[in-house]
């Protein structure tokens, strides 16, 4: 027994940690690649309503977002508290939606246009009036695939 222990203690070098950075870098690159930084700063506060019958959205690159909600606190002084539309990085009027859809389409391949979806990220407190207006504009722009953004959850 004693011989055994002696032997062991003598031939126990420290585990080499030289490859530890490599492993960590591998993980790091994975997260760097998968991370999607938020592209737009939200000027409107949006808490989407809950729903149970939800579907995952496919092909994020083909989705254009329309945000609807009341302006965030620091914007309320200049824009008030009533529900507004945000397209990309600015407030917009209902009339600008057709233009927005047109520019979104220009950036895409012609084959992909029928698969383009418009996601309505609307706050649960907004009234249907503004939503209906947007839907009418989308119909005029022939962007018929829409998606009401919701959270998963029971009522």
């Amino acid at each position, binding site marked *: 027994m004693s011989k055994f222990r002696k032997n062991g203690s003598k031939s126990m070098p420290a585990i080499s*940690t*030289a490859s*530890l*950075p490599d492993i*960590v*870098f591998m*993980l*790091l690159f994975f*997260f*760097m690649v*998968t*991370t*999607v*930084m*938020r592209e737009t700063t939200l000027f409107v506060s949006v808490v*989407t*309503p809950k*729903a*149970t*019958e*939800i*579907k*995952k*959205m496919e092909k*994020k690159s083909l*989705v254009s977002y329309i945000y609807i909600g009341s302006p965030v606190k620091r914007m309320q002084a200049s824009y008030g508290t009533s529900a507004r539309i945000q397209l990309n990085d600015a407030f917009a009027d209902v009339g600008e939606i057709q233009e927005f859809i047109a520019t979104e389409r220009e950036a895409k391949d012609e084959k992909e246009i029928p698969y383009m*979806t418009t*996601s309505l990220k*609307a*706050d*649960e*407190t*907004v*009234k*249907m*009036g503004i*939503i*209906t207006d947007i*839907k*009418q504009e*989308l*119909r*005029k722009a*022939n962007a*018929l*695939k*829409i*998606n*009401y*953004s*919701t*959270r*998963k959850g029971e*009522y």
Partner: protein
Amino acid sequence: MASKRRGLPEINAGSMADIAFLLLIFFLVTTTMDIDTGIARKLPPMPEEDQPEEDSQINARNIYVVLINSSNQLLVEGEMMDISQLRDGAKSFIDNNGIREDLSENPEKAIISLQNDRGTSYKMYIRVQNELAAAYNELRNKAALSKFGERYNDLNKVDQKEIRKIYPQKISEAEPKNIGGNS
């Protein structure tokens, strides 16, 4: 030469792991893996301008009228209804198969007509959309289980299409109206 080589020690790479960990933790924290979810719908195309409004010949029994007013109350087929009953109401309407005189002839012909006011809250609208979608999903699941022994979502594309043919989801939204008088 020899002395110079001895005077250039190897850079200690021991702290490299720490730096990498720091970056790793930063990206771990900032990464949001949330997938966008929602209720997908298709809008009807805009009617042609020169096209006269045609009176569609749909039997009244095949239309399930759901109205939501500006104070978020439901009027279903002319009667007030609580949102909790809507799912079962829609299911019995769709899956009537001509048994009751006032409900649909068969699921294929059944159309749900949804109409909301400009003052309806978005939350209520989504809730109604959700209940109607749930009614269809439950019926489809039932059909899928009895026909293929699997849930609708687990079926392959061809079988799903077959189920969809039995229960086509027809939710029609009327041209917007302003009944409540507020915008």
